[in-house]
């Protein structure tokens, strides 16, 4: 993979101007990486679509399924009757199902975020961390 061309800017205005110039030259958004010490919310830079919300729902469903198996299947196996309640008590189990639904959504959201944000991977640009920490905006282009 070729080394990226790196430019460092003091202001958001300068960075946006540089982005416009790159786009005018036909550089695709996927070839551009903009790094900063705070979110810039650049409307000029298209990002891949996120599926975090969808995965959170899937995580919730997985959590609910696990909770149902845990409560219903194991309670049937143990067969303990308490308080005159049926072995499978949906009112009571519903609370555990709710909690594990939320837990599933939370864990999958975290996992999907790490994956989509490309964390725990080789950094796209090396050697610019200090500049970013000092408030500079780094624009890297791979042609």
């Amino acid at each position, binding site marked *: 993979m070729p080394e990226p061309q790196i430019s460092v800017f*003091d202001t*958001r205005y300068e960075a946006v101007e540089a982005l416009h110039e790159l786009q005018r030259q036909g550089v695709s958004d996927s070839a551009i990486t903009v*790094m900063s*010490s705070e979110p810039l919310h650049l409307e000029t830079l298209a990002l891949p679509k996120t599926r975090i919300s969808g995965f959170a729902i899937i995580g919730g469903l997985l959590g609910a399924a696990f909770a149902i198996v845990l409560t219903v299947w194991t309670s049937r196996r143990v067969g303990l009757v308490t308080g005159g309640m049926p072995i499978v*008590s949906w009112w009571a189990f519903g609370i555990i199902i709710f909690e594990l639904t939320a837990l599933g959504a*939370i864990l999958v959201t975290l996992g999907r975020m790490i994956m989509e944000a490309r964390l*725990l991977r080789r950094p*796209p640009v090396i050697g610019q961390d200090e500049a*970013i920490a*000092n408030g500079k905006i780094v624009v890297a282009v791979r042609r």
Partner: protein
Amino acid sequence: MSNGRPTNHKINADLLRPLNKPGPGWYVTVVVSGLVVAVAAVALGYQFSRGLGVWGINRPVFWALDITNFVFWIGISHAGTLISAILRVTGAEWRRPVTRCAEAITVFALMIGALFPIIHLGRPQFFYWLVPYPNERGLWPNFRSPLAWDFFAINTYLLGSIIYLYLPLIPDLALLRDKSRGLLRRIYGTLSLGWRGTQLQWDRLERAVRVMAVVIIPVAVSVHTIVSWDFAMTIRPMWHSTMFGPYFVAGAIFSGIAALILAMAVIRRVFHLEEYLRPIHFNNLGLLLLTMSLIWFYFTFGEYLTSWYGNEPGEMAVFNSKISGVYAPLFWGTVVCCFAIPAPLLAIKRFRTIKGTMIASVLVVIGMWFERFLIIVPTLTQPKMTFNWGNYAPTWVELALTAGTFGYFVLLYSIFTRLFPIIAIWEYKEGLPLGEHGEPTIVGTPDVEYESA
């Protein structure tokens, strides 16, 4: 300052100062809270060696200060994640310096609250028997028990709150990585998961935090509701109430906001963060505290009116003991601490200052601890069968453990402020108005370097 916006250098220097030079106030706080924890540890060791008999509990009072502390600290935990999530979801801009102070409270308060059911087991080394896993003992949790619901709710909330605290911390961990050396650099580097601040990372982080905020709000509400059901699922006098869930949740948010105001006031003073934690934050939280004071009074009045109007003998015995009996000083003290003083104090704008909200918060925290005690002990001392009535007085062990929870909380919180920025640096910068050229930051002299341990 330039264009009305503090420089990047100044923000970093101010908000990283507590990590580098915490000041004498921090050391005093750590030593004092550490001593309180040490006394509590001695009491706990004594209890483990002698058994639960060293507590004042006896038939018919088997829950007392331990469960009071459990309910109180789980309530305090609602300060953070819930309030932070609500403020994020509603887009309240003033939240920015507040959220991390709040989220850290949740994690530490939950850790402390969750200790008490384990301590109360008598043989805490066997607490893992509560965990549903295949074993040769033939034991399996009863999923129809509210205590099993507690296990799932508290652990979900604790794990969710840790992740909710951690996610927005990642960019600040990367900042710390870039400004530290040696071992600390490696530790912060590992914790920041290779964060580089690409726009893709920012976008995904903000999306994940939003999703988490939406998910965590119902979890937070469920946690204290389930804690209330530990009581309400029984048919004990003044416990078997349908409104116990919302009553507990309202009380939890109420005490949580008070704890948050106190924490912010102390942090502001000790770390000289006056420019960041401003009077407007205390004013806004004071208004929230006022709202919760009114809601708390409404629920309390509704709860007691229903008991009084029903005139059922078992209920009335407990009711009378609180209103005019042995527990009356505590009950009226609670009303004074939670409503009679804070509500007028916070309603008058002139008094809704940092000092005013602090006074109200101290009273609310004390009052809410009394309230938790009053929910638990009077009902247990006076069961429906009058031949079974009893008394309860705490021993030094219980009092030391109670004091220890406060010391432990302060100690954990102090250590957290020494290791991580207590105000989210990137969130604070993001909320500042842009300069005339849209500059997000103005680069000044090189930032302070965080010293290696």
